[in-house]
């Protein structure tokens, strides 16, 4: 049984990782949810199995460990709330861009393309000028 649960967790982790690496927001969210399920199953597996942990419900030594179940429940509630927020964010993103793709960081692209984005610095006539140019030149060689 433990092996089966471990295999289930591993499968969920694998699928989740694949989906998180996609560029569509909806797939990323499903991927995150699958990863969360995998972690929760792992959590439940970490305690030993047995009867329901209620006093007077069978022999004392043969009860399941209730703590990991309680912990998993807490984790499920948290991931439920955050998933709702994530869906709201994705919906907002779709409203604003009418696209489900993850957007690039424009500022970062800017820096990558031009080194220092402040080309205006050149006409400042300060000592920083030469250094900035060096940085820009270095980055331009690296950039696309």
């Amino acid at each position, binding site marked *: 049984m433990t092996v089966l649960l471990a295999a289930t967790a591993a499968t969920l982790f694998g699928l989740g990782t694949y989906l998180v690496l996609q560029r569509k927001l909806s797939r990323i969210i499903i991927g995150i949810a699958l990863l969360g399920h995998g972690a929760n199953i792992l959590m439940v597996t970490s305690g030993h199995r047995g009867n329901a942990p209620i006093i007077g419900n069978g022999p004392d030594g043969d009860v399941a460990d209730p*703590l990991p179940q309680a912990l998993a429940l807490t984790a499920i509630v948290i991931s439920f709330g955050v998933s709702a927020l994530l869906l709201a964010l994705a919906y907002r*993103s779709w409203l604003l861009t009418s696209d489900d793709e993850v957007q690039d*960081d424009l500022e970062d692209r800017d820096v990558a393309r031009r080194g*220092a984005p402040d080309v205006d610095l050149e006409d*400042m006539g300060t000592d920083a000028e030469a250094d*900035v140019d060096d940085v820009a030149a270095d980055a331009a060689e690296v950039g696309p």
Partner: protein
Amino acid sequence: MKVLLPLPVLLPIAGAALSILLGGSRRVQRAIALTTLTAVTGLAVALLVVVDRDGPVVTGAGGWRAPLGITLVADRLSALMLVVAAVMLLAVLVYAIGQPGAERNHVGFQSVYLILAAGVAAAFLTGDLFTLFVAIEMMLTASYVLLTLGGRLAQVRSGMTYVVISLLASVLFVALLAFVYASTGTVNMAQLSERIGDLPDGLRSALAVLMLVVFGIKAAIFPLFFWLPDSYPTAPSPVTAIFAGLLTKVGVYAIIRTQTLLFPASTRPGTLLLVLAAATMLVGVLGAIAQGDVKRIFSFQIVSHIGYMIMGLGLFTVAGLAAAVLYTVHHIVAKTGLFLSGGLIEHAGGSSRLSRLGGMVRTAPVLAVLFLVPALSLVGLPPLSGFIAKFALVDAAAARSSYAVLGVSLAVTLLTLYSLMKVWVSVFWAAPRDPVPGSDQARPGERFGAPLLMVLPTAALAALTLGLGLAAGPLYDLSLRAAADLLDPQAYVTEVLG
């Protein structure tokens, strides 16, 4: 004191609930938030005094003693962090009230901010790993909302990256908890400290590395930092300031706590941490030099300075850990102050891009001082707090003959100076630019270039970083005592389980 220990967590939660109920009046909401955080600050200071005098204070929620219940522990490190965090939360709240539009005119801002405060306090005070998970989730969920409140495109775009990365870290955290529980049968940190030494070497290393990854994502250490400079700059300045000051430091605190308390002295990954620290410092500062936006420069510097704290930890000596604690305290104050001054620059100049700002040393001389003090403190000029923290760190590294990482840290200091002077030269010294359309230059009632409620907290933090530098003796002694506790966790364990 035992009864008062849960209050830094419970008060902000109660305040948040009350603030939602009384959402009709912005004024009442602000009063509630200010009162709550003032009370938390007072409590935290009292806690620090008591803990420093009598040793760790422990409370089990609902009367359940450790290891059964939710354990709250305050030792010197957590009490000190709590004091600094409470002061920052209060200062930034005043700033947010002062800045037009910082609350996004949203009824939930004060509540969410208080939940963030509760999460940070809980993360510092908790005595078991699972409560640490819940506390960090509380803090992060509040931060997701604060980051995306307003729902503009840039916020949604960068908020998405931030939320997804943080969620991945949380999933790994749950998996880590499962592994820890399966192998030791407990998640209480004091009990783990006794049991984790009996585990086979391979399993213990796996747990240590997984912990480092989970908290490394939160703390933004190399190579897990890429989400930070992308997401922080899009939020309003007070929100960015509190994120910069506190959120990554909770990750650093968790790394320090777990690596010292849980793992036996012989198995601590000192060299690995030193290599990561050096890489974090270098990559962060090189990123900062390449940027052309004030907030992005500051954000990359957060990454760079996390490296210094990890370096202090990686030395695993009393002096090294004391320097790490001191550096964390200094960095929280200086970085929050710097981000607040960045917000002032953006407010007065109408933009945070270097290419659109200039000549502010004449138009806003007060801002120039308010920027320069935390900036020079971050670089480490005497008599500011950064000098003391860096000196302690370099001294500790030299005492342990770790000259490679020492050299890197000194070189990074120079590069930090360069990146901050780049801001100084183009924002304050350069010829004034044409005003950005839409930024009304002269506003009535703003003698210092910004509303008084924005200037005052920034000035207070600048004064605090100067004060910490001048009063470094007692603070360094306190850090030494906290570090000695960390390296010899027996007192902590006995107090919690006893």
